[in-house]
């Protein structure tokens, strides 16, 4: 399947991916509004890590054998049949954070969606969009979406 890969040697550390991810997964979908009003509410599925000049963007690997899928006690974490993406159904998630505990990439984080206001937050490959927004908006093509 197509996956998102970071090319850390070209990551600027600008964090535009995080910004656009946040907007894409916000309610308003409007950049300024989303960032002003929903920052802290929406946890971006991509996170930029940096240490010195080394920076890179990390998000869910959508593993073939996904530990988060195996660890999910509610069945909220599931694989989308069409895209192959591992997606969390926020309505089912109870926020037990088993997924957070088992993701070797640290790519699942505690979010604020769902009925209880807590549900695992992670990359959903932009729900089947042709190109995820982090890839689309990376100014240096340091995030690529491809079959490998």
């Amino acid at each position, binding site marked *: 399947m197509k996956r998102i890969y970071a*090319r850390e040697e070209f990551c600027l550390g600008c*964090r*535009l991916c995080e*910004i656009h991810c946040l907007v894409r997964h916000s309610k308003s979908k409007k950049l*300024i509004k989303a960032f*002003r009003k929903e920052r802290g509410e929406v946890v971006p599925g991509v996170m930029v890590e940096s240490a010195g000049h080394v920076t890179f963007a990390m998000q869910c690997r959508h593993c073939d054998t996904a530990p988060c899928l195996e660890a999910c006690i509610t069945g909220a974490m599931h694989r989308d049949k069409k895209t192959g993406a591992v997606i969390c159904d926020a309505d089912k998630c109870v926020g037990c954070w088993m997924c957070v505990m088992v993701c070797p990439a640290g790519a699942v984080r505690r979010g604020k969606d769902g009925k209880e206001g807590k549900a695992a937050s992670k990359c959903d490959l932009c729900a089947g969009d042709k190109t995820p927004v982090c890839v689309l908006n990376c100014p*240096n093509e340091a995030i690529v979406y491809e079959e490998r």
Partner: protein
Amino acid sequence: MRRWLVQPEFKVERDLERCIQCQVCVRQCANDVHSYDEEDEQVSSDGACCVGCHRCATLCPTGAISISRSQLEFKPNANWTPESIRNVYKQAEGGGVLLSAMGTDRPWRVYWDHLLLNASQVTNPSIDPLREPMELVTYLGRKPDQIRVERGPDGKVRLATEITPQLKLQTPIMFSAMSYGSISYNASQALARAAKAAGTFANTGEGGLHPDFRQYASNMIVQVASGRFGVDPDYLNVAAAVEIKIGQGAKPGIGGHLPGEKVDAAISRTRMIPQGSDAISPAPHHDIYSIEDLRQLIYAIKETTQHRKPVSVKIAAVHNVSAIASGAVRAGADIVAIDGLRGGTGAAPTTIRDNVGIPIELALAAVDSRLREEGIRNQASIVAAGSFRSAADVAKAIALGADAVYIGTSACVAMGCHLCQRCYTGKCNWGIATQDPFLTKRLNPDVATRRLTNLLRGWSLEIKEMLGMMGVNAIESLRGNREHLRAVGLSDREMVILGVKPAGE
């Protein structure tokens, strides 16, 4: 001493309605213009350090940043321009040579903008490049004056004249000499890859050939400059051609200086000099004090390369450029590259950059005419350099007599350069003219290669359109064909030098 008389050049404004405090600008500015105040949770900007490179504004997701020239106006003075006043301030405070980068920004006449191309109407059909072949293939190198053929016993006619080595270009545009050191590894790689992809050539400049780039060597011209950095027999033999750099349009008669702090391990290896040592290119080649010395170097290089590589001689366009070019051809140069007044550089004394040399248009026309007058035009190809901004500039140069052109600034701009002219600071926010690992990674060579290839492709398509519109289908029918040029707003003398008629004639 604090530089208190020199006021900021730019004003950076932030539209607080739009700013979302995302700090992209803070993370992108190598000049520390933007900063985030944790306490106030507010991004703010200080224009004093702004070089006007637009990195922040380009990456700002909400378009909240605008950069304008400082509104601090001097009393109008046609003689004492703000630049000249500021330069005096700077020198009064610093006491040194003022440095600049890229080509001169003074309003010297751009002759391209006074030359117009021709097109077919009725009497000969224009040719549609989308339907008919349109040939840009260009061979650079020495050509014989005539071809001899022999008929074999089988009745087949064979070539009996030996053709000396040639560079085959799919399009008459090459990348100018830009050394690894003056530009980043990624930028160098992109140029080499784009040259290979487009079937043309990139020039190493005087910085040697990084081992990683050997795979592109068949599309690279290696330079031998006065510092001889990175030059050994292998370097000469692995390349497609060798260029002896005598001068550079931005700083004729001036050497070069790569500060030791930029000479990291990789550059040190590539240049074959100790890490951390200054790389100083002397003003002249100390083994070339006359034309016959040049001849010896050319032959030394040809011997070293078993006469398998064309040798180019690059000179700056100075007053007697045509005589120098003629001398170079007679000294054995297979290609003469002429770099005009507006040619770029990574660093040059401002006063030299802005006041020395002549425009490439006049130099090119003079050299082409001179070589034809002497009947030696076939003996060398002419490559023109020094600011080609568009396919039209290239087409006009070819009509004036160039076989091909070198583009440097355009290539940099294609990669993202915003002509802030601060290459010499090593803080290129676009990752081109820098060795800072924070900055070099900003240039993804895949992206840069694609952008360069696109530029070459776009320009090539435009040149094809222009050829077609002129009713010819091969670049050689435009080369030196000044009938296809007309001048507007030039003096008679300028037109004589350019060999073009005024529009309407």
